[in-house]
């Protein structure tokens, strides 16, 4: 029975990982840029939600409605000003730009909010639901549900809207897409901004569980990259699946073997999967190869 609880806890943790990774995998798969500042977008989202809660008493869950669009706008500006000039440049240049942005955002946050751990005390933060003998933490269930909902919304967008189709086409072949008369520049802006917006929403949803401080993004971004690659670049469903796998592996190994090995074992799983399926669980074959023209 404890094992069942452990698996459920792992799934809920996986929901958090999926939530954090969905935006990253989208940017990674379509714009083909490893956005090392993704964790910092998450951090900015958490801080914005925190400010809204402290100054205006707005609930972090409600704050999503503000934080998501705010980060979308920020992502749009960042893409136009920083990413666009290096979109055809070498990977090295792209890495420098996003890592530089990450350092800038971390230190900007340090200047504005300081190094303290800022948390919100919410009456429901420690509330739990009992399903039989299984304990479900409310904020984790919310994060899990939103991750699923965002994934479905993203899939619907990609499948049925014009811009969604344009995004998929760009992910498949950016040159041919351009020849077909699709404004790939706008696709990049849109995708990058959406990725940032999703990070912002994730940040607001994490605030009831975790305190925010300028380097909080680092705590999540490594696992987000693993989830994005494991799931297959650009695959939202893959991100969810990989997030859940990593979450369950982490909590199970922590419980069954030793809490100290919690983070070690999912790397083993990660390596094993990549040996068998280099494109990730649901990635298109060849999607892992970045073609720079």
């Amino acid at each position: 029975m404890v094992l069942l609880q452990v698996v459920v806890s792992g799934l809920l943790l996986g929901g958090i990982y999926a939530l954090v990774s969905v935006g990253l995998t989208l940017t990674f798969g379509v714009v083909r840029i490893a956005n090392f500042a993704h964790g910092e977008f998450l951090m900015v989202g958490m801080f914005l939600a925190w400010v809204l809660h402290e100054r205006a008493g707005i609930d972090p869950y409600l704050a999503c409605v503000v934080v998501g669009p705010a980060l979308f706008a920020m992502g749009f500006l960042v893409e136009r000003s920083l990413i666009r000039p290096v979109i055809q440049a070498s990977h090295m240049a792209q890495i420098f730009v996003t890592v530089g942005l990450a350092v800038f955002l971390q230190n900007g946050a340090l200047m504005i909010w300081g190094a303290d751990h800022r948390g919100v005390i919410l009456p429901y933060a420690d509330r739990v639901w009992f399903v039989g003998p299984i304990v479900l933490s409310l904020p984790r269930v919310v994060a899990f549900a939103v991750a699923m909902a965002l994934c479905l919304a993203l899939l619907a967008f990609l499948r049925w809207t014009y811009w969604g189709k344009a995004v998929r086409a760009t992910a498949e072949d950016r040159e041919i897409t351009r020849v077909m008369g699709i404004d790939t520049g706008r696709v990049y802006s849109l995708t990058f901004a959406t990725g940032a917006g999703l990070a912002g929403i994730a940040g607001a949803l994490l605030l009831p569980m975790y305190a925010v401080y300028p380097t909080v993004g680092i705590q999540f971004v490594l696992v987000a990259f693993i989830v994005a690659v494991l799931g297959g670049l650009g695959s939202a469903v893959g991100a969810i699946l990989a997030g859940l796998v990593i979450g369950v592996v982490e909590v199970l190994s922590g419980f069954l073997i030793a809490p100290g090995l919690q983070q070690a074992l999912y790397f083993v799983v990660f390596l094993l999967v990549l040996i068998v399926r280099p494109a990730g669980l649901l990635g298109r074959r060849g999607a892992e190869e970045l073609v720079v023209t």
Partner: protein
Amino acid sequence: MMIRGVCRVAAVSLLLLLVSGSPATAADAIRIGVLNPLSGNLAPLGQDSTTGAEVARDMVNERGGVAGMRVEYAKADAPSATAAVTEAARLLDQEGVKIIIGAYGSSISLAASAEAEKHKAIFWEMNSGSLKITGRGQRYTFRTTLTFKHLAEGAANALTEVVAPRLKAKPTALRVVMMLEDSAYGSGMRPLLEEALAKAGIKPLAIEMYNAKSTDLSPLVLRFKDLAPDVVIASSYANDAILFARQARQYDFNFKALIGTGAGHGQADLVKALGKNADGIFTTGATLTINPAGLKPQAKALLDEFNRRFEKKAGHFASTHGAMGFMGAWFLLTEVLPRTGGSTDPEKVRAAAYEADIPIGGGINGFGLKFDPTGQNERAFSVVQQWQEGRLAAVYPTALATHPPILVPLARWKDRPE
């Protein structure tokens, strides 16, 4: 021709500026490097330690400086061991300081002190308790604060002298589990805690190491819940201490007492995040909240001034680490450097440090100052404290206690307010 001339004039004046500029500031000021983690996970306490040291500097400067010279700090941010090495080298090579004070995080301190030794410069540790920092045969490393050994003894005292009598149980009959974060701090605490507990005849049911950066501690909580312990002893940083308490509540893991060994359990972030649920948690370490009856009169006055200034500067009440930063810097600036006439020459500072002799009760947290041959302050000790109404109260040893212990045993989670 004209342009060339202008360039030459500019170059010469720049050179003059450089030559005249730097020695002038060096002559009338004592420069000391302050190296602490000011960003990253360890930043809250690193920041407090720095603020404490700054309060000491301000007070010394307002009282006329050291041997008539102003004290200036060159600050460095060292969030990791790697950064500690490069930043210590920068302070020593480029800023030209001969003394570095800091450095709070154990891994950071180990790296920075090694770098300072290499440069034959003084490393003055004010906050970190890792045993390895002193006692490795270094010549220029000193520590004004207590070590992990004191913390472990404090935790054992909390268990045997405070918790066990109130649970009306023999210490050896208590079910004890230990959780330790797996960097230098937690893994350094482990053998010392085991030893201190073994002295009291206690063998923990389980000892779990975990990563302080974990986003989920439910595996740890569920493993412990299975063992149904009476007491949890923890060496944690802030994030993980908070996460553990929250998840213990969520999974209804009840225990009768939680004893921390400083760090995360001794800082205000715990109360900010847990609110009333922080009350009852024990921690050990140096503290400001000891009974002032145990302090010398001038230390009492100093404590009041420090508290006032720290709160004004930092915006929150002084933490233990803020006080240790203050004490370390204050001892250096008022007891050691005046003996060298303000010189920061490492050999002179070293000799002066060994001359310093302050009895227990002479510092604001009750510490005295007398270095043993390894450079460790032998007049440092640990006090058992408890969070009461959102503040830390000293509860043991009885002579220094300000409040009797409360909430032993802790209420079950379901009987606590949200």
